[in-house]
């Protein structure tokens, strides 16, 4: 009996360890499996959502001037286009890290960009305009009128910044950089800034009839230099550049580009989305939010328990190492961890991991550290007498842990755990810094279509979710209220 008993305990422990290893293994296979090397057959085209160049039509399909143009070019060159959403201000990092091969998103050609990438011949002209409340638009007719503006907002690193810097006598203290053109427009809408300088195409679609902004905002051309759009690619890709330039020349010649212009520019392309369309889109985003939540919780709980055992271990170097890691992880913002895990592998190996995988890894590490401290507190708060009572009754260590102290620990840690888990629900919104399309990002995308209420609507989803969790925790507390620890 002795050996059998001993083996069965060992087997149990082995099984548990094996299961955890398997889980972590699957996780990493999933992660590595999604590492996309720069494949010859596909061209990864970086874009941002921005009407009319790249936008989602009523059928949920990505389309637009640049989308269709890129599809045509890839088709002719024998590539498969893969559209990768990017953050405009990160476009150079994305290009260099190999996350994308081309920037094809109404990019204005300038000398600064030419220094860090190859840029095709121009394929379209554009100009910057000002967006402001309709009643004050008449005060601005020429560029120098902007000197009198109280505050001007523009998208950082965009063509708007260049034109603004060229106005002599403009007080730079009154300038404000936003992270996207749509944010610049929202700034003006909310009254935080007086004037936004954005692309004409963008201004047209955001202030269209029927949008939240259309009633109060208008746009006006005040004579900024026309600028030219080009396609960006990595330095050294001269061969690709040559082929694309040849096709641009050809399309200018045969009227293809004119036809695209006719089809997309200066038109109302999609109707303002209604309640159900928004709800559907937010639900899809909420699905991603829930996925991040479930994966993080499912992996961080067991990992956190292991880490807490490690920090209480008698092996000095192990507990020291883990305590240092916990200090680093808890001492730095989760957002930073997400960005590091996403970008660093790209710079080291030249291949990129899926944004969602990076979010999983960062969230699991971060929350495992927080959970481990809660577990440690719970475990150490249990009276030594409970262990000793189990020992003198001939119980094994696993029996004492699982049959006696575990429930007491759970009862103790429910309040701090529920706090942490509710924080996790809302931390999932951080995933959008690397373009994981969770609910807030879906809501923000509607701002481009000129409506702002989906942002507030998204709060309802969080409230309902957290409400359900709160009830669950209350139920658990009630379930365990029959005894006192």
């Amino acid at each position, binding site marked *: *009996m*002795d050996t*059998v*008993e*001993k083996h*069965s305990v060992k087997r149990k422990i082995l099984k548990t360890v094996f299961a955890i290893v398997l889980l972590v293994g699957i996780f990493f296979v999933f992660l590595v499996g999604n590492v996309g090397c720069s494949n010859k057959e596909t061209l990864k085209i970086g874009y941002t959502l921005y009407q009319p160049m790249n936008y989602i039509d009523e059928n949920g399909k990505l389309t637009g001037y640049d989308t269709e143009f890129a599809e045509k070019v890839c088709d002719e060159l024998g590539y498969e286009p893969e559209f990768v959403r990017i953050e405009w201000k990160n476009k150079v990092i994305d290009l260099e890290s190999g996350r994308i091969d081309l920037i094809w998103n109404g990019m204005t050609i300038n000398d600064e960009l030419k220094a860090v990438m190859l840029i095709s011949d121009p394929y379209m002209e554009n100009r910057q305009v000002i967006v402001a409340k309709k009643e004050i638009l008449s005060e601005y007719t020429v560029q120098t009128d902007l000197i009198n503006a109280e505050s001007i907002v523009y998208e950082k690193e965009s063509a708007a910044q260049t034109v603004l810097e060229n106005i002599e006598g403009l007080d730079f203290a009154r300038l404000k950089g936003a992270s996207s053109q749509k944010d610049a427009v929202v700034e003006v809408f909310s009254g935080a800034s007086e004037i936004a300088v954005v692309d004409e195409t963008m201004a047209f679609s955001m202030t269209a009839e029927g949008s939240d902004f259309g009633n109060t905002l208008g746009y006006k051309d005040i004579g900024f230099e026309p600028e030219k759009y080009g396609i960006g690619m990595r330095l050294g890709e001269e061969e690709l550049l040559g082929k694309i330039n040849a096709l641009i020349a050809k399309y200018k010649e045969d009227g293809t580009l004119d036809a695209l212009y006719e089809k997309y520019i200066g038109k109302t392309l999609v109707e303002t989305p209604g309640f159900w369309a928004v709800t559907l889109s937010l639900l899809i985003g909420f699905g991603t939010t829930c996925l991040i939540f479930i994966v993080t919780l499912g992996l961080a709980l067991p990992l956190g328990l292991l880490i807490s055992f490690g920090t209480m271990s008698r092996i000095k170097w192990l507990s020291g190492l883990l305590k240092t890691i916990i200090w680093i992880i808890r001492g730095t913002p989760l957002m930073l961890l997400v960005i590091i895990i996403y970008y660093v592998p790209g710079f080291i190996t030249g291949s990129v991991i899926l944004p969602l995988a990076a979010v999983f890894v960062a969230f699991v590490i971060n929350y495992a550290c927080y959970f481990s401290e809660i577990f440690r507190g719970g475990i150490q708060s249990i*009276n030594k*007498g*409970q262990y*000793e*009572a*189990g*020992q*003198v*009754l*001939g*119980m*094994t*260590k696993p*029996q004492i842990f699982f*049959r*006696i102290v575990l*429930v*007491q620990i759970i*009862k103790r840690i429910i309040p701090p755990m529920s706090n942490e888990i509710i924080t996790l629900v809302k931390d999932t919104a951080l995933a959008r810094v690397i373009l994981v399309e969770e609910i807030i990002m879906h809501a923000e995308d509607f701002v481009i279509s000129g409506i702002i209420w989906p942002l507030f609507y998204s709060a309802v989803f969080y409230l309902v979710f957290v409400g359900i969790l709160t009830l669950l925790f209350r139920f658990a507390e009630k379930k*365990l209220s*029959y*005894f*006192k*620890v």
Partner: protein
Amino acid sequence: MAFLSVENYKKSFGNTQVLKGISFSLEKGQILAVIGSSGGGKTTLLRCLNFLETPDEGKLYLNGELLFDADREKANKNSDKEIREKRLHFGLVFQQFNLFPQYSVLGNVTLARKLLAKEQYRYRRNELNKQLAALRGTDKKAFKAQMRAELKAFADSLEKEINEQALALIDRVGLTEKIKSYPCELSGGQCQRVAIARALALSPDVLCFDEPTSALDPELTGEVLKVIKGLKSGDRTMIIVTHEMEFARKVADKVIFISDGVIEEKGSPEEIFGNPKSEKTKAFLARSRENRELD
């Protein structure tokens, strides 16, 4: 040789030597009362007997078998499994009860035995599985059905036995009405009685009590002492660390007075309480008498 014999137990914590060579022996069915002032090493002695602490030096014989030998321990450390088996010879009732709060009175009494029964059951199943593996064809099918029935009957009989024993023990400590209550619903005295039933459930050869009434309100000590007194029988060996001198005098067969980690004096209750020889014992007894009068 005596039923229980402890030879020269020594134990230090850091630089402080708490036990400085304790030796005593006890016959089966005898009750030993351990008295002495706080910090003298009484509790440490009990913890060493129950293998919650490992003595630095000394030997322990139980029923003629060498159960513990510090020299052997140093050369070849006992595995958890071996220590667990040795512990089962001893039971311990704690000063602070240490009941399992999430289990009912019945659950507290049956838990340890149920866990042991589970191991028995598993062992039996493995044995039968081994036999099964050797069989072929139709024999195998028939054996499988028979095996299932046998295992079920085995499990049922184990459970029945454990529950019956627990009910009897709970009745013995007078808590039949509280069988479904949880520790938080009981008074201190009731808790300690449950703890006694829990320790008895494993039928230890030697049952130890570590100041079983010290954490209780004075009016609750009586019920617990009564229960302990009622346990005295021909084959139950007990060691009681206590401050209740009257109680020790009445129930004990043997008394040892421990002071500063050594046995200052040992003998029958009459000898120790009636005619103490050591000055330290006299002083201690006088002090405890004074304290009682102050109460």
